[in-house]
């Protein structure tokens, strides 16, 4: 079996459509006003009070489903890609195997939840950035990128969806998200513990892993979709991150990165909108 599978080789049937992060970020449209734009600021957090809340929740549920598929693929690859003993301890692989088991269950739960919410598999495009973070050839970087950053994002997403289910009075959504959230906290804790154990006595490697995690955390903020700001649909689940082994400083760091991603995207979108508006004026004159 091939080691270090590239994202292009992921097994997907004809129902799935993949859209790259670059394509997503090149969309000049934005729900948020840019700096200096005369538009009233409004909260954007995903709650049932939003008129578009139900379809936004359906879209997010599909994102969770494909995220779980990629998390399963990532954890499974970590069991296979590295040599036991020389590259990673057996106990780490055992944890990754347990995680793959959890993720497989999450795929089934997400699939059934999506069906219950009226969403078909492949109805929305798939963003493969999650698996891309799981392609590192260094197991420590992979733990930082997948277990700490990716699974950390999962904690934030599940907390938002659990609260959505609670507010909407949807017992299935609330219950399922709560159970999956408990697993995600464990996955992040495993990543935190293994990162410290493997890099014990090697501060340079630990710093490199944490730097990689920062890059992935910023990437996984999806241009501000997740942050402490109420302009982001998904909030930062500070309490559950604490339970997963994040220190207060680490949580504050993720919050700063997310807010920075939100601000950068707002400015970039405003610039893209200005360019498109200029093109419209040019077309009208010609």
């Amino acid at each position, binding site marked *: 079996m091939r080691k270090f599978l590239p994202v292009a080789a992921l097994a997907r049937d004809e129902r799935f*459509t993949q*859209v790259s992060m670059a*394509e*997503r970020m090149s*969309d*000049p*449209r*934005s*729900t948020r006003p840019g700096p200096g734009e005369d538009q009233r600021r409004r909260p954007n957090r995903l709650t*049932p009070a939003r*008129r*578009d*809340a*139900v*379809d936004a929740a*359906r*879209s997010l549920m599909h994102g969770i489903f494909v995220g779980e598929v990629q998390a399963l693929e990532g954890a499974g690859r970590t069991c296979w890609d590295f040599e036991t003993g020389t590259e990673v301890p057996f106990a780490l692989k055992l944890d990754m195997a347990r995680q793959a088991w959890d993720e497989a269950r999450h795929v089934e739960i997400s699939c059934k939840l999506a*069906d*219950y*919410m*009226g*969403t*078909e598999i*492949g*109805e*929305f*495009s798939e963003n493969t950035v999650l698996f891309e973070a799981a392609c590192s050839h260094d197991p420590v970087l992979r733990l930082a990128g997948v277990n700490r950053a990716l699974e950390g994002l999962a904690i934030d997403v599940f907390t938002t969806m659990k609260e959505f289910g609670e507010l*909407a*009075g*949807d*017992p*299935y959504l609330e219950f399922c998200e709560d159970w999956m959230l408990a697993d995600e906290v464990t996955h992040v804790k495993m990543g935190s513990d293994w990162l410290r154990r493997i890099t014990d006595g090697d501060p340079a490697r630990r710093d490199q892993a944490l730097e990689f995690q920062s890059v992935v955390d910023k990437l996984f903020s999806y241009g501000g979709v997740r942050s402490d700001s109420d302009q982001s649909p998904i909030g930062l689940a500070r309490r559950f991150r604490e339970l997963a082994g994040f220190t207060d400083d680490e949580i504050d760091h993720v919050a700063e990165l997310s807010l920075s991603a939100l601000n950068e995207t707002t400015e970039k979108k405003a610039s893209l*909108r200005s360019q*498109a*508006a200029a*093109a*419209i004026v040019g*077309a009208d004159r010609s």
Partner: protein
Amino acid sequence: MTVTVLPAEYHFVKFDSSVVSALVEDLLDRLAMSGRDVVIEIDETTPLTRAELTSTAPVTLKVESGAYEEPKAPRTVSEANVLNVTGRLLLRVRDREQGGFADAPADAELSLPQTVAWDVYSTGRLQRLGVTVQRQRWLYHFRNRHGFTDDADAAFDRLWSADRLTWAELSALSEATVASSAA
């Protein structure tokens, strides 16, 4: 009948006004509204999904680009969404003029449960006209606004299968279902 879709040229999205126009002309035929002139103003600067009726003479719809967008392929148009979103708004026009909805509040005055109840009533009729719709999606919408109960599911079935309701019947059913779920 004329269908005008604006703008003629797009810079933020990859829509084609002639495609939207052809779909809406076909829809007007199916709804027995082929005598109506329709203007659709697409706001291509936002990916949000709001669509609203701003005038009835001619029928004028203001649609944010996300409402017509293909979720599999961002910034491209979805035929299914054009038919569903426009169909629901056109049925509201027809209901208000012909179907016992003269006393219904203006769209902006409708509560979320009332809006969803009317949308369910409209989408069920669109399905019987041959438009591809997502029944389970609308059941989930309805449950979110009327409660996750057997009573809510029964009310949904009644709205979905109805062909001639009045505003008084629809609003009473919605109100009773919300009250029953809250009890």
